[in-house]
């Protein structure tokens, strides 16, 4: 094949690196962008740059946000003593969409997985303990990690670690299909899981 534009080829190569985008879709996306007027393409490029330059993690819960603290942590109504512990910022999105949870979050940034050399010191466990000991008035932790082996082991580890601290611990009920990742579960299932959370 004769390349007629190195620039196009470079764009395709970058787009094809995105999750779920194969080479064919990357080509289609790039061709689409070439045909677009300049204005929307520039806006897309700027929003991509802002993603990296502006976004940071909330100093309290570590979900992604633009400022020092995210709007959830900044909202005094959500300081109700309940903290939902999740693996990634995308899980915060999944639970927020249900509209059922009125407390705050704690994003671990991963789960314990010896095969990937991830131990408790590599995820935000220390930060979670600091929050519990701090002045947020945390009374209940809801563990909402994925129900896979690593999520289960992490849940168990946190349970052992936190239960002596006088905080109520619950985990979301497993109406969730085995191996299904939290972000793919439909909102109805997830609200039911939150409502049906149980103690250990």
């Amino acid at each position, binding site marked *: 094949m004769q390349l007629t534009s190195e620039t196009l080829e470079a764009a395709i190569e970058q787009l094809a690196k995105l999750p779920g985008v194969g080479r064919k879709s990357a080509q289609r996306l790039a061709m689409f962008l070439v045909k677009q007027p300049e204005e929307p393409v520039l806006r897309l490029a700027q929003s991509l740059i802002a993603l990296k330059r502006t976004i940071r993690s909330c100093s309290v819960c570590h979900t992604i946000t633009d400022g020092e603290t995210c709007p959830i942590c900044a909202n005094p109504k959500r300081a109700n003593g309940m903290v939902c512990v999740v693996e990634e910022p995308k899980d915060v999105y999944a639970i927020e969409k249900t509209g059922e949870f009125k407390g705050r979050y704690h994003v671990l940034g991963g789960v*314990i*997985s*010896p*095969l990937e050399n991830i*131990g*408790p010191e590599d995820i935000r466990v220390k930060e979670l303990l600091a929050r519990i000991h701090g002045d947020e008035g945390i009374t209940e932790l809801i563990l909402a990690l994925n129900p*896979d*082996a*690593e999520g*289960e*082991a*992490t849940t*168990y*580890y946190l349970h*052992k670690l936190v239960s002596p601290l006088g905080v109520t611990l619950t985990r979301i009920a497993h109406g969730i299909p*085995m*191996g299904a990742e939290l972000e793919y579960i439909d909102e109805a299932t997830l609200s039911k899981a939150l409502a049906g959370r149980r103690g250990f």
Partner: protein
Amino acid sequence: MFCRRTELDRFRNHRDSVMEWVPGVNLLSGPNGAGKTNLVDAIHYLCMSRSFVAASDQFVAMHGAGQFALSGVFGGAIRADFSLSCTWVRGEGKTFFVNGSPLDRLTDLIGRVPVVVLSPEDRALTGEGPEYRRSFIDGLISQTSAAYLADLVEYRRVLRQRNRLLMQAALQHRPPAPELDAWNDLFARSAARIVAKRNAVLDTFRRLLAEEYAFMAGVGHEPDFTYRTNASDEPAENLARLEAGRDRERERGQTLIGPHRDDLLFTLDGIELRRYGSQGQHRLFAFALKLAQRRYFTDILEDQPIFLLDDVFGDLDPGKTRTLLEMLDAQSGQTFITAANPDPLTSVLDFTGNHRHFRVAHAV
């Protein structure tokens, strides 16, 4: 269940083969190397996501080909026709499709079309290491229980994670990391579920094995087995055993308790088959195991699995060949038989009606 049609594209020695099958007995005869087994292996691949002949997908693609594709049309007594297909590309792996929609996980494939295979490789089942018997048990249970397959996938994952912690500690001559406790708890529960399910299924299976052995070898023999496991169906008991074996485990850097070390001890009239069985007894036992597996599937699924008999009639005496073929003729299940010499089979069964005889000369 049955397979109506298969298409092979660069699968082993088949560049492009299309086959239309009958729901009865499909006999494939022809010289060795013509590709009879590969036609049957394609059906196995579509149902189980792997070859029963080749150890790795690298060897499944036609020599020199960087990819292969398979597709098949399947049907059953209690469900409408559907298609299963699969593509494999070197470096990218395989994708399976049901009616054209890709499956997220290979485990979603297993059990859609249950299949039982008996081939010369099954000598290992009664004659060699415990891994062959564990794989038999897993094939028996996971094709009828998606929950068991999910448990098994989880168990293997937990086992690998746990072994990694133990191995790291052993290599660095230090106690395992404190999060081992979390893995222990998960491991104990996961192991208990596997053992409980194996116990329950093997209990039912015992009676089927006795009946099928009697069918093949006549009455008066006592085929049996002992399920050997060092794990328990109680999580608390598994935790206690992990604790008791703690030092040895740390020394070795791996998990020594659990169903990944299970075995079946086959006996015939109270005597251990693996050590003292004759060749003929091994052969009949393997036949009986697979016939019992077929019965187990039929009882649970209320439909017959697909039965693949690859190159196993050559050693069978004429009386037993007749018994087996007449049974297959009388039942509704679909069978595929490969044989270098078709005469002992064509002289018993009529292949012009419900059954069909395919002469495989050269793959095209």
